[in-house]
């Protein structure tokens, strides 16, 4: 052990406070999570394989037998399907955020962070931002695969980019739900399964994989007001893909606005709940 005289005790620099500190602290934590991703590339890889598998399975297994816009055509179905797969993919980032935060709790890292003079929401914001980067990466790869199986955009690049923006915002919103789940469960394992199971009804009781007009009335109402469906509908409109719902439900008639409102609302509610939970978190 090197023997050196310890410096005279000093307190940490005075926090700048406010939004500047929140932003820099969040970026420090986001950087940490991004470094982690490069050290465990298999997690990113599995995150990529899953949606690709969905594209291939849905388009070749279901594609020949599902009716979209009054016709059964595998090529039409693939173009219909992609908005749903994109949306499902971004929401699955939820499970990652939950498991990551639960793991940090389990390992005592959340205790360390909470004992530091850092911005309160930064640990969670950092995590959700890092997840957003991963989600964006997944979406890019998925888009390439989609083009390979025959998916096309018809409304121009700016609108398509708008659709991707809505998708990422939805994914970011859902990762805050994941953060809350991660802080609420006892083990990382529970966070993984707890972060996934509720996503199945949310993504399936929607317009993502089938035309809602075939559903019974009550189920159709749920599907049409599902925040997830608004984003899917918005993407179909912005991509110029088939199967845009003719429904007169408000979110289906104004899908872009509805998608924005839903995502912002989810962030507002779940960020507040998660940060509150974080302040009293115990491993």
């Amino acid at each position: 052990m090197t023997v050196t005289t310890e410096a005279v005790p000093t307190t940490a620099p005075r926090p700048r406070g406010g939004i500047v500190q929140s932003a820099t602290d969040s970026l420090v934590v986001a950087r940490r999570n991004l470094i982690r991703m490069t050290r465990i590339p298999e997690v990113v890889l599995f995150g990529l394989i899953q949606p690709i598998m969905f594209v291939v399975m849905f388009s070749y297994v279901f594609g020949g037998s599902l009716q979209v816009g009054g016709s059964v055509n595998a090529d039409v179905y693939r173009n219909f399907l992609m908005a749903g797969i994109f949306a499902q993919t971004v929401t699955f980032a939820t499970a990652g955020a939950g498991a990551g935060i639960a793991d940090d709790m389990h390992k005592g890292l959340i205790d360390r962070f909470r004992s530091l003079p850092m911005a309160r929401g930064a640990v969670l914001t950092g995590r959700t931002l890092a997840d957003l980067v991963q989600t964006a990466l997944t979406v890019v790869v998925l888009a390439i695969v989609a083009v390979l199986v025959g998916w096309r955009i018809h409304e121009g690049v700016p609108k398509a980019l708008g659709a991707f923006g809505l998708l990422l915002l939805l994914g970011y919103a859902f990762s805050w739900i994941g953060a809350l789940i991660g802080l609420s469960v006892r083990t990382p394992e529970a966070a993984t399964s707890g972060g996934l199971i509720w996503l199945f009804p949310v993504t399936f009781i929607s317009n993502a994989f089938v035309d809602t007009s075939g559903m019974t009335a009550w189920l159709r109402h749920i599907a049409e007001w599902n925040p997830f469906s608004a984003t899917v509908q918005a993407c179909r409109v912005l991509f110029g893909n088939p199967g845009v719902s003719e429904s007169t439900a408000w979110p289906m008639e104004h899908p872009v606005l509805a998608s924005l409102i839903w995502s912002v609302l989810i962030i507002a509610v779940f960020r507040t709940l998660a940060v509150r939970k974080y302040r009293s978190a115990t491993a």
Partner: protein
Amino acid sequence: MPGAIYAEGLVKTFGDVRALDGVDLDVPEGTVLGLLGPNGAGKTTAVRVLTTLLQPDSGKAVVAGIDVLKNPNEVRRSIGLSGQFAAVDEYLTGRENLRMVGQLYQMSSRAAKARADELLERFNLAEAADRTAKTYSGGMRRRLDLAAALVVSPPVMFMDEPTTGLDPRNRQQLWGIIQELVAGGTTLLLTTQYLEEADHLAHDICVVDHGRVIARGTADELKARTGGERVEVVVHEHDRIDTARTVLAALGKGGEATVTVDEHTRKLTVPVTGGAKLLAEVIRELDTRGVEIDDIGLRRPTLDDVFISLTGHAAESEDAAKLAGNTAKNTKEAGK
């Protein structure tokens, strides 16, 4: 004037369990307080309250002159915490871990980098600095964790069982670091289950059991409470135990002292008065009677003895108690 760490009437309940049941603490600046107690005594809960991680149900806590409950963020600038588990990100390198903590202590990126390099050097981690913490040994992780707690050289440090699970060499090393730290003027609150550790490092000791401080004082003061010294003898041959017992009983305290015998280890213990002179007498007498001895010594009471005399049970965790129970059983069987 209250010390660098001050607590008054801290109470914290979890359901039916009173984890803290009115704890008072006062640690003068630049000293070390050892919080000594078995698992579940409330040591960790006390540390969590003092480090702003947990809200007490009632009571008052002041750290570095700042009210913990009213101004937690100010307290966080002045403390370092090294918890029971090495809380480092195992997928980050040692250097990355320390830089991150420095930045979150609101140091500039450059200052955090320089401090990280300095700490890695000081804690003998320079060579492993660019490997992920996952590849570190237990001792290295602990050192990294401690380095993370020292990123700002905080005036007040909290260490929750810093050497639990470390091998003797690593423990010694960590003790050295802690002593250096205190020499530099840091106030330290340390929890431990190891009586030897509290004895070695702490100026003052609070013995905690069931959420209450049941005794406090210096190690010597606490030892004085359990009475005087004793002689311990290990005889070479099992069948000489009885002879040795007679000798010790006669020379022990009051001339008719009670001798405790561990048949398995052939160890006899007797309370004595008279110190080294008496020890010489015991050796001569045993020699005269032809009792060959493997080991003999004058033993002052340990904090273990203190704990037993204060609580009626040993300062052991449940697991350790179970293990000790098994050993006792084995001893008995082997002694047959």
